[in-house]
């Protein structure tokens, strides 16, 4: 018989290796946050937030990029929310599990897997070129909306499913129609979860670069109409870093970007947890 180590020794070795790897993983991720914070946060002053970039971003702040980010994100959310929540309601409340739901769900999953550069290509050819919107807030917003749609569908579906079936039965027994049940009871109960999906979408939009570079463009002026090009914080950060324009400003922008996304995701996570705890 081949010589074998005592199982307890094997276990000791395995556990040590696994804990070490886990420690390493956590260290890498902590390093990312600490590095950006230490180098970036000191750059973030009130004037950094309130001044427009000057000299391609070498000086000044990031105000115009904040405005462009807000416009693009709001437009994307305004377009994707009704579509996504409507799809989720249809999937959960109106259909039995069958080929239709399976196709829609599979489609949403595939859409979630489409890389952002492909969405960028698509937005570029359809909105920028074919429809003639040019590099603009509207082209960017439409493409972003498609990108976040699967996130909204999936989280809304989960939230609506979490609402106990008894709620609906009580409504029907009181003579409410299906639509009344949905608008007065189901949706308000699922609202925290739906909000989670929307906030996650905001977080995703804030960090997106590849889609926007080719649909919203990179103009540094503050956009004043839907047809103006606009440079978001993420795109600005990418250009600052890649062209080596200003490392301090790049770090500052990165810090704002990262902390706003972490904060938004944290709130989103908290809301979903509350919803799940209430109904479980």
């Amino acid at each position, binding site marked *: 018989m081949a010589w074998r180590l005592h199982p307890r020794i094997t276990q000791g070795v395995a556990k040590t290796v696994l804990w070490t*790897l886990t420690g390493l993983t*956590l260290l890498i991720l902590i390093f990312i946050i600490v590095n950006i914070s230490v180098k970036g946060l000191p750059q973030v002053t009130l004037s950094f937030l309130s001044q427009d970039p000057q000299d391609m971003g070498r000086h000044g702040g990031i105000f115009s990029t904040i405005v462009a980010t807000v416009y693009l994100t709001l437009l994307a959310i305004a377009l994707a929310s009704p579509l996504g929540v409507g799809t989720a309601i249809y999937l959960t409340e109106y259909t039995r599990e069958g080929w239709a739901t399976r196709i829609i769900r599979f489609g949403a999953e595939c859409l979630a*897997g489409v890389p952002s*550069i*492909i969405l960028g290509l698509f937005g570029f050819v359809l909105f920028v070129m074919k429809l003639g919107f040019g590099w603009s807030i509207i082209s960017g917003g439409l493409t972003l909306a498609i990108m976040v749609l699967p996130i909204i569908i999936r989280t809304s579906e989960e939230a609506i499913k979490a609402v106990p079936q008894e709620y609906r039965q009580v409504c029907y027994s009181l003579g409410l129609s299906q639509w009344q049940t949905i608008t007065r009871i189901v949706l308000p109960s699922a609202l925290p979860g739906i909000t989670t999906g929307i906030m996650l979408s905001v977080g995703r939009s804030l960090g997106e*670069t590849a889609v926007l570079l*080719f649909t919203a463009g990179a103009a540094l002026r503050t956009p004043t109409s839907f047809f103006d090009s606009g440079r978001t914080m993420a795109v600005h950060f990418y250009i600052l870093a890649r062209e080596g324009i200003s490392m301090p400003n790049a770090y500052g922008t990165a810090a704002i970007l990262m902390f706003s996304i972490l904060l938004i*995701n944290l709130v989103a996570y908290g809301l979903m947890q509350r919803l799940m705890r209430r109904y479980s």
Partner: protein
Amino acid sequence: MDKEKFIERVLFLLALSSISSLVIITIFIFVEGLPLIMHTGLKDFILSSHWAPTKGFFGIGAMIVSSLLVTLGAMVLGVPLGLACAIVLAEFSSERLRRLLKPTLELLAGIPSVVYGFLGVIWLVPLIRDHLGGPGLSLLAAAVILGIMILPTVISISIDALTAVPDVYRDGSIALGATEWQTVRRVALPAPSSGIITAVILGMGRAVGETMAVIMVAGNAIKLPASVLDPVRTLTSNIALELGYAAGRHREALFATGIVLFVIIMILNFSATLITRRR
């Protein structure tokens, strides 16, 4: 038509239009890119590595190989780290530690890819250049950065798969005298293997499709890499780098690059769905 029926129709239309966006994307990418593939010939397009779009040479062979190598490298690094993390958190750590770390790791998935790319340029690229040689901007740098980027995805899905294994399985194994590690290796890990494979495939999808971080650290040279320290250009980088100024056939070639990427991603998604559904 009564109101209830009307509302149902409207919701059905919303659901339909959500899905049709996927169909429209597919159609547009193929309509724009297929003519070039027809013109160049599929074989020349994906096998040749001669990319000189202004002179009429459209071969993306080197980029396909680079994309696959970068992804493979990311997997070699990210999967063991992520899996180790998932096993520790799901099997060995206290409930409290898991409750704290799992959401923390999921939050990290939200860090934008440009931030990863930036830190790669600042920290990793000089490290590789000074200690291993080469230009620093390299296949290795891209693989390491992507490996780190896919960690949250791999960890989160693997933990879900592991915690879905009923505790009776573990109790049975422990009662038979197996150690905790034997239980993990022989019982807890094999049971949700399809869930873990799904995690790996989704991680791969993320790595193949990633653009901005890769552009920043990979060096973007169009040739077959001879070593991990050589600069490479992936399919995604090729599109992003040239779309800004491409026109005519050149632009078509970028859409054709998109088709190849799209097909790779869809194969990955499809296998992930198949594996999940089998359970």
